[in-house]
């Protein structure tokens, strides 16, 4: 059955692993004519060039056609059209809708009114399942497994959507998390509660130092954004505390990799790019294979 993808929260372990297997098939062979004769709409009510290009490339490599818009400013939304009307109209033309929206819950609602499947490409601060899947794929690919890994999350753990989704997706795989953040951006209680309820062990740190960096399999960096702080003096104090430099990577575990959802600003110094642990650009590339797998799954196309 064709179906929407709104969140990874309810995906089973088997489902996640099978999607990752399919992504690996697309990595081995990215150009396949599986979407021939299909039209995919990319509706980006909020600009996100990186995500849109990745989805559109995925469709193109599968020989499908793309319609859509990259900014709602030039659409009927700016004239006051409801989301439902836009979805109903586009579903007349497309077999699948990939949607990014600034409002939370927009993808869930669209999936309930749309006659064609919806893939959520980010709904405000809520969910971004293809990002989470590409994070999982990158972890599995670099570590050989998802089971029993040490994963260190660094930076903005309060508002960071990607780190929250990653915790939920990893619940099937007995991870041990290290949460490294300033007190203002610490992991919210609801996610710590989620960890305890799901048997996920974690430690919290405010210091970003060798004891953390040298004892992890994955170092997942996020951006500390100035606008998150009410106290700008506090921002000035912490903004340079969570910067990763090449000099900090001399004694890591041999297979340790650094991930980042990108765009990065200054939380990973440029000299890290040349280190063997740097993996964030390949991580973004993996997004293509994962999205090919997700699109085929939503359209119920055998890979």
């Amino acid at each position: 059955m064709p179906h929407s993808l709104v969140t990874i929260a309810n995906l089973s372990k088997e489902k996640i692993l099978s999607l990752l297997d399919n992504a690996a098939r697309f990595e081995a062979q990215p150009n396949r004519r599986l979407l021939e004769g299909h039209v995919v709409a990319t509706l980006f009510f909020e600009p996100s060039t990186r995500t849109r290009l990745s989805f559109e490339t995925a469709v193109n490599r599968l020989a499908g056609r793309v319609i859509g818009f990259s900014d709602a400013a030039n659409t009927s939304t700016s004239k006051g059209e409801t989301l439902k009307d836009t979805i109903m109209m586009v579903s007349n033309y497309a077999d699948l809708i990939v949607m990014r929206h600034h409002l939370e819950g927009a993808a869930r609602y669209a999936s309930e009114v749309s006659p064609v499947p919806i893939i959520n490409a980010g709904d405000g601060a809520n969910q971004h399942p293809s990002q989470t899947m590409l994070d999982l794929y990158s972890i599995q690919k670099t570590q050989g497994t998802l089971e029993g890994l040490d994963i260190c999350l660094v930076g903005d753990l309060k508002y960071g959507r990607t780190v929250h989704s990653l915790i939920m997706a990893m619940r099937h795989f007995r991870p041990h998390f290290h949460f490294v953040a300033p007190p203002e951006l610490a992991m919210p209680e609801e996610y710590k509660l989620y960890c305890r309820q799901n048997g996920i062990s974690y430690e919290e740190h405010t210091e970003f130092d060798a004891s953390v960096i040298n004892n992890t399999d994955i170092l997942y960096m996020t951006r500390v954004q100035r606008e998150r702080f009410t106290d700008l003096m506090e921002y000035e104090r912490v903004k340079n505390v969570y910067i990763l430099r090449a000099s900090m990577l001399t004694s890591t575990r041999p297979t340790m990799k650094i991930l980042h959802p990108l765009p990065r600003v200054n939380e990973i110094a440029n000299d890290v790019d040349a280190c063997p642990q740097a993996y964030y650009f390949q991580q973004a590339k993996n997004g293509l294979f994962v999205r090919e797998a997700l699109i085929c799954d939503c359209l119920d196309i055998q890979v």
Partner: protein
Amino acid sequence: MKDKLQVAALENGTVIDHIPSKLVFKIVDLLGLQNQESSVTIGYNLQSKKIGKKGIIKVADKFFTDEEISRLSVVAPNVVLNIIRGYEVVEKKTVVMPDELHGIVRCPNPKCICNNEPMPTFFHAVDKEARILKCHYCEKELHV
């Protein structure tokens, strides 16, 4: 004079009792009693041993559905509905929070789709004891 009635008795209908006084008109609103055709008696600031001052609403010839009653669970979980037939209380109903609440609670998140589209709100009861709801759309939790 302990048993003296504070408002006139009802032949058939529903008496909603033990309403905190300040919530009386909210309940009138939630049940749409402004549009009720039969007689409605509303009392408030009545003496109550249980809650100090209470309110009471008597609706003649009206028997609420479970869906209507469940709407009360959000604002007034402790009210009691007495079903009256022939001047007798034939049944007492307490309010139970339903698993799903449609169009009853407003989502406090201004960035939630349900506050930006012409659509009913939809909440799931996460913890009925602690009265925690979760928005079906933005997934934010709400304490009522």
